[in-house]
């Protein structure tokens, strides 16, 4: 007999070694996330996938599924926590959606839509951050970085390179680029690298590809991120 956990009362099978996130996704249950990607080592930093496991709050993307776990995900309390976390991500950076070419295809925005987030709640921080347009084909806009480290992991794990890292702590945390000048053009990043395409926001963009999909046909214009995410899992990532 297979092992199982419950998520919001529903019994879900799992195999040893699976995280709660992996077991949930395999069973067609969406748990909101931004720093999690099934192909990369879990990082557990964005905290959007916070669930209650037998009464304790844990990150579903890093916590192993084990027998007798009662997991709560879609409770009013956790949904409210997730909305507040998303609002903090928005006010900490500079996320001006109307002027961002990722708008409509952005996971940060899509998670916010999914959580029915209408406002920022917190005071806006308006940090001063730079844009690195030095590379011929790839643009880095630090204003939109949420420090999910997906580019760091993709560069190391999929591209066998080491282009990105996160440096500094707290409010001084920032994405750094592994080159003497700190500019992207002096790295060996290639437009075909996974790291160039993995960013959930508009912080890493491929130049000369903006606004090719009209409003109404973008990824999240009519389909919520839970469906997009589960479909990707079912039919494989690009």
């Amino acid at each position: 007999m297979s092992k199982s956990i419950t998520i919001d009362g529903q019994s879900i099978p799992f195999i040893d070694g699976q995280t709660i996130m992996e077991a949930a996704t395999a069973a067609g249950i969406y748990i909101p996330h931004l720093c999690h990607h099934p192909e990369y080592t879990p990082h557990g930093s964005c905290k959007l996938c916070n669930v209650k496991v037998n009464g304790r709050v844990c990150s579903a993307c890093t916590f192993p599924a084990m027998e007798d776990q009662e997991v709560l995900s879609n409770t009013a309390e956790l949904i409210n926590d997730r909305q507040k976390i998303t609002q903090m991500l928005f006010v900490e950076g500079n996320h001006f959606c109307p002027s961002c070419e990722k708008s409509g295809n952005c996971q940060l925005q899509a998670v916010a839509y999914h959580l029915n987030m209408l406002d920022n709640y917190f005071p806006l921080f308006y940090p001063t951050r730079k844009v690195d347009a030095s590379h011929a084909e790839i643009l880095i806009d630090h204003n939109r970085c949420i420090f999910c480290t997906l580019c760091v992991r993709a560069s190391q794990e999929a591209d066998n390179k080491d282009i990105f890292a996160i440096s500094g702590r707290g409010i001084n945390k920032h994405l750094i680029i592994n080159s003497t000048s700190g500019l992207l053009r002096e790295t060996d990043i290639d437009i075909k690298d996974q790291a160039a395409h993995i960013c959930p926001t508009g912080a890493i963009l491929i130049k000369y590809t903006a606004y090719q999909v009209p409003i109404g046909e973008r990824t999240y214009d009519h389909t919520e991120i839970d469906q997009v995410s589960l479909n990707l899992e079912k039919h494989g990532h690009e």
Partner: protein
Amino acid sequence: MGMNNKIRIATTSLAGCFGCHMSFLDIDERILQLAELVEFDRSPLTDIEHCTNCDIGLIEGGVCNSENVHVLREFRKNCKILVAVGACAINGGLPAMRNFITLEDCLNEAYLSGIGVENAHIPNDPELPLLLDKVRPLHEVVKIDFYLPGCPPSADVFWKFLTDIIEGREPFLPYELIHYD
């Protein structure tokens, strides 16, 4: 409510572009239906200069100068339900992109050293409201009761919000009506 039991609505644009007001007017012929149920108080649509007691205040744009602060406070004082309408009211929007440049540098470039500037001179007429050092969203200045995101929010967003209020429901925007762009 007004003396004829119509819901009174005031509207204004602070540091906005009037795009949200234009989008509101995109409700098209539904405005006739709306006119039976509401009446407009202070608004660019009426030319009434100051708010009286209102049920709903719709505010487009963020806060970029001292006059914006006074108008916002007047709306808060007079409106039961104050609504931040559009991206600029919610997070400062496009005008807030000056927040990364000092006010002095902004004025210098616009009026003294910028390309094509003639008769270089920073406007200093005492009637001009003083600029704030940064553009701020509405919720940092007064309590906001509801938010209509979008740049601009579509006509259907205005319609959904107003009909929810008129029919006595808690306003709710479904997925299709939530956009930040």
